[in-house]
């Protein structure tokens, strides 16, 4: 009897791109809303961004079923934290929790490429970038997903963020204003949409600052 399902994989890649930029007193988290499989589009209107806490938003590309499961696990853990500590988790705390949660499944990973954005306890913007098994670092900006290779070099050029290898260690947040950062993000996505087939339809942008949270949507090419 020939092997059936020899090529079955528990994973699928639903594509998409996520970006986050940290500012002095704001944070921008953005992701496109296209969900695809293979060369087909499943939907043009799917949110990859999840609010984990008042000041922590996570954008994840990859396999959306795993992303959804990851979001639920983190939300439940945050509820437990709130019951025990009577307050919301800080963004750096959530960053560590996400890392631990991902590594917990080191031998059957969440196929999720995450970018966590928010405000730290001083009110400064913070962005954490991850691989699928939980390796993370705090950075000034990051892109993940199918369009990341197109966006990251552009952000390197625009945000002049110092390399972590340079000494003395410099503050990682960008000096750009909030409006400039949002504009930059829109530019990133329109460019990535041109060449990456998995990115497009529209981009959802979350802006976090001391006044609260704001949401913007910008249409992208649908092809």
């Amino acid at each position, binding site marked *: 009897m020939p092997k059936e399902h020899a090529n079955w994989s528990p994973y699928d890649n639903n594509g998409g791109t996520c970006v986050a930029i940290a500012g002095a007193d704001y944070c921008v988290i953005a992701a496109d809303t296209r969900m695809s499989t293979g060369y087909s589009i499943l939907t043009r209107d799917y949110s990859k961004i999840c609010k984990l806490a008042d000041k922590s938003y996570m954008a994840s590309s990859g396999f959306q079923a795993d992303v959804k499961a990851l979001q639920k696990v983190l939300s*439940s853990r945050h*509820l*437990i934290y709130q*019951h025990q500590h009577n307050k919301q988790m800080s963004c750096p705390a959530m960053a560590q929790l996400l890392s631990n949660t991902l590594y917990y499944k080191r031998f059957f990973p969440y196929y999720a490429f995450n970018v966590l954005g928010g405000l730290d306890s001083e009110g400064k913007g913070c962005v954490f970038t991850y691989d699928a098994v939980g390796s993370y670092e705090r950075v000034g900006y990051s892109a993940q997903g199918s369009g990341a290779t197109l966006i990251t070099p552009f952000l390197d050029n625009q945000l002049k963020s110092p390399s972590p290898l340079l000494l003395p260690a410099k503050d990682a947040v960008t000096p750009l204003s909030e409006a400039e950062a949002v504009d930059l993000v829109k530019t990133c996505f329109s460019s990535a949409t041109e060449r990456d087939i998995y990115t497009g339809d529209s981009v959802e942008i979350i802006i976090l600052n001391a006044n609260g949270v704001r949401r913007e949507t910008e249409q992208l090419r649908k092809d």
Partner: protein
Amino acid sequence: MFRNQYDTDVTTWSPAGRLFQVEYAMEAVKQGSAAIGLRSKTHAVLACVNKANSELSSHQRKIFKVDDHIGVAIAGLTADGRVLSRYMRSECINYGYTYESPLPIGRLVVQLADKAQVCTQRSWKRPYGVGLLVAGLDESGAHLYYNCPSGNYFEYQAFAIGSRSQAAKTYLERKFENFPDSSRDDLIKDALFAIRETLQGEKLTSSVCTVSVVGVGEAFNILGQKTVQALINEFEISGEEAPATVSAAEEAAGGDAAAADQGGAAAEEEAAPMDI
């Protein structure tokens, strides 16, 4: 209650068919400081008396948020109450994770009751020494339940547990018929009056009591001290006495016990509390 040879073990019946250890656990509830609960069709209020051991110490937390739509007030061994609250929170979180919807309060109290029952039938355990007033919402509106150490639970329109709770129950018995249609603020006011009854002449201030509300469109929250003090001042300054509305008072403790399966009244001092 007299000591006798059938009260050492929870797994030993007395010749009269009583489990004394369970009854003693319910005594522990009566020793705790008072907690009261009342509800209308849309809101439920929990309030409790906070007595610190000494002026130097802080007082214990007796009201816990279990989920956005459920809160619990405890009387008795607060440590047992804390553990049970953690269990309730965990059940709500797991249900929400699986079903993406809030755990119906009716289900939660059954799980809690079953958990309490286990402790009445194991030789290596003891009953939980805490009574829980669980207030919450489900699709049909606001509900208030009382969970006993015996594993019984009852639904109430209003109830009071803990020391000097009889005074509060008497007040609630007079007023409970108005509760279903009461506004949120009137419900809170009645809760404060009931708490005042248990204080037996001691001055009612926001430092000796805690008040919490849950309602349709309002997540469970504990009112701040300043808010409570403002409400107290409102009716103390106006010299308002607890309005003495005469209503057909029920004979049993605390108002409308409408539990379908359980029936009957909660702990009456004389009869065996579990006799239904």
